[in-house]
């Protein structure tokens, strides 16, 4: 079972960091690995994006999902079939921010009496959106650790996130949503026989890793409650390039950090690069102005088809006999 291996691996990674830190490896897990991972992440992503950028886009191949702009009295679909660069940018932006394509899923149902209804089939969309946004919020909330004074916006986010004021410390909504959404995405992969069939280690491992990060994070915030001041000292040291490892930080913090470290280092080599790739997709980010404007293929091969002269030469007699006009007699 691929999924089991992925979870075992994540548990193993967390254990290595936990016991490694306890055995005096705080500097390794708290400073060296994070720096290495950050470099790998930045260089890796940049290299990946550059490698995509180096590949040419010879043809405009937008997938058109609505009416084209043609005659003035026919209403075009500017977002689903953009005819301008601005429209295409809006299309990509909406794709990134709202996962519009996933939102397209509908389910039709034949109701008694032959009536037809279309209801949304949005589970994947909702699960994916919930995960990505809660992850973003959790990510932003962590700025509390990296900046002094804490930016006001981080405070607002925390305020909103903890709006319901449940528990002490206040339970953040996104913590619950994040774990639930990841759980749902994992459950979906396991429950659907088709998805189970096509899922790879590379599909389970990121889910396991993210769940590992979320669970260690939740443990830290609500149960272990390490000395936040020292953790912040570590974090500010890291971003200020004056790394220092304060003593007395719970080893679980290092497990949490190490899993994030692994995620960063793994990111550029995995399917997670979709985060950057989505902006470059030629079926989404090009305007459908194919016939309006000329587009140039930088490596357009010099191919000449069967020319008219060759054709006329081959069929000359038959053309002449049937009275089709000729270029040369």
């Amino acid at each position, binding site marked *: 079972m691929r999924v089991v291996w992925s979870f075992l691996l994540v548990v193993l990674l967390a254990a290595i960091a936990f016991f490694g830190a306890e055995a005096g490896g705080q500097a390794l897990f708290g400073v060296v690995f994070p720096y290495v991972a950050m470099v790998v992440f930045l260089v890796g992503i940049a290299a990946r994006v550059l490698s995509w950028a180096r590949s040419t886009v010879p043809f405009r*191949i937008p997938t058109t999902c609505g009416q084209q702009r043609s005659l003035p009295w026919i209403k075009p679909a500017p977002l689903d079939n953009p005819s301008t660069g601005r429209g295409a940018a809006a299309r990509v932006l909406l794709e990134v921010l709202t996962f519009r394509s996933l939102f397209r899923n509908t389910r039709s149902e034949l109701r008694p009496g032959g009536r037809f209804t279309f209801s949304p089939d949005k589970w994947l969309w909702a699960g994916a959106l919930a995960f990505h946004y809660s992850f973003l919020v959790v990510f932003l909330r962590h700025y509390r650790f990296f900046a002094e004074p804490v930016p006001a916006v981080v405070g607002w986010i925390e305020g909103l996130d903890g709006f319901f004021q449940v528990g002490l410390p206040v339970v953040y909504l996104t913590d619950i949503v994040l774990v639930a959404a990841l759980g749902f995405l994992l459950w979906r992969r396991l429950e659907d026989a088709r998805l189970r069939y096509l899922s790879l280690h590379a599909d389970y491992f990121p889910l396991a890793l993210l769940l590992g990060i979320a669970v260690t994070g939740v443990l830290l915030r609500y149960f272990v409650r390490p000395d936040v001041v020292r953790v912040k000292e570590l974090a500010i040291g890291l971003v200020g390039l004056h790394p220092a490892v304060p003593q007395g930080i719970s080893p679980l913090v290092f497990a949490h950090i190490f899993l994030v470290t692994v995620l960063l280092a793994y990111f550029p080599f995995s399917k997670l690069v979709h985060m950057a790739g989505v902006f470059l*997709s030629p079926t989404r980010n090009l305007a459908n102005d194919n*016939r*309006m404007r000329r587009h140039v293929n930088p490596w357009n091969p010099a191919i000449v088809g069967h020319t*008219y002269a060759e054709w006329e030469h081959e*069929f000359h007699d*038959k053309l002449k006999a049937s009275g*089709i006009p000729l270029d040369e007699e």
Partner: protein
Amino acid sequence: MPEKTRDELVQIDFKPPEREWMDPAIDFEARRGTWSYPGAAKNLRYLGFPNPREWSPTDEDWQLPENWQQIIHDGLAERLNKYRSLKLFLDVCVRCGACADKCHFYLGSGDPKNMPVLRAELLRSVYRNDFTAAGKILGRIGGARKLTPAVLKEWFYYFYQCTECRRCSVFCPYGIDTAEITMLARELLNLVGLNINWVIEPVANCDRTGNHLGIQPHTFKDNIEFLVDELEGATGVRVAPSINRKGAELLFVVPSADYFAEPGIYTFMGYLLLLHALGVDYTLSAYASEGGNFGLFTSHDTIKRLNYKIYHEAKRLGVKWILGGECGHMWRVIHQYMDTMNGPADFLEPPVSPITGTAFTNAAATKMVHICEFTADLIKHGKLRLDPSRNDHLRVTFHDSCNPARAMGILEEPRYILRSVARNFFEMPENTIREQTFCCGAGAGLGNDENMEMRLRGGLPRANAVRFVHEKHGVNRLACICAIDRATLTTLMEYWVPEVDVSGVHELVGNALVIDGEKPRDTDLRGRPLAGGKGDADA
């Protein structure tokens, strides 16, 4: 072999063994009816394509070049640099499964490798193995596999089992387009001589004579004249299309099935009537006599090679701009490739309708206009005398053809025309039309006889929606704007919903069009009686 009891017989083989998808084993013998015959050596030789030979997928040895793995590896490396689409689509898929139930072949067969994600994964796994660090280090654990003969055979099977319809691309959060993957995978297969005759023969014919069937120019002309006779018989109107005439205002290019095949010929008659009624100054070409372009199902170079003729001929004849007939993949090529490949068309003028004066600004660069754009504009300006009651014997629905819908977006023009020329128009359910339209199951060169079972399976989702409107609204006519559709949907309907006929949009225009000098019409262009024994109503 001991006799099996009846119970054993029905129990047996039902549950396929749980196999990892990465271990392929296609039994071509057992799967007859779901693959196409390979390209004949003579066609490959004519085209100068690699590895011409006589072979069959059922052979153990496919007679590949000795270094075939290297050829494909190098070919893939080259294309990764040339096509950002390919590289990106191979990198970013997260296998979310949104596309899984969007492919008509999957829906009709249940074969999991017809899920678009797995179809792409067949190539992606080899890409990982050859080109990514993770794949090289982790091997199979990293989702990578070597390109073995079995894997190659599986490529042949499944990449010639995709109709490049792009429906999956609509639902993918990253816009991953299996058509693009299939096109490039087929390019790779072509490098080692793996292609299908139903594609390669039309390509060779089209290159040499100008049309898919390989009909020579004098026969082309005779055939057009024959159709003119038939049309006169049906309407009393004698139209006079010219061929290869220099100085005409428009060059008119249609798919060859429109003047050879049933029921395309009735659509062709519709075009001719329309252009005649308006007195449009146009010419057909016996040289550029094929709008279709099976290069699209072969390689980008082949697209360019075949498409070359259209601009070349337009320039030679000195026309102002080009009008194109109803055809699906033809319009993908014209809309998304022609100008880039064979332009600039600076010897043509920006297209303007000679009848209404409307400038087709959306075709300003390519200078080729879809006949549905042309006709919709005419109707809007009241330039056509139409008697829609002449289509009262038909209850019409519209099938959006894949390429015009998802590679162009010509959705409203044909509907506007249909609503103007027919009074009984009904839409199929919304998740089966427009950008979500279901493929006929036989595009991309798969519309051949030997692949019939796969076509009927793949066409089930479309036929199922037609059956629905047939039962609910009595629909008996499926209109479309694609020559492949006209041929293959006809077969599909005969199997699944025999009460429904297939036609082009302009056949219905031809039925409804009132022309000076026509005889009282008591039949449609097919010679079928009009509703209520009605003759020439309002003319």
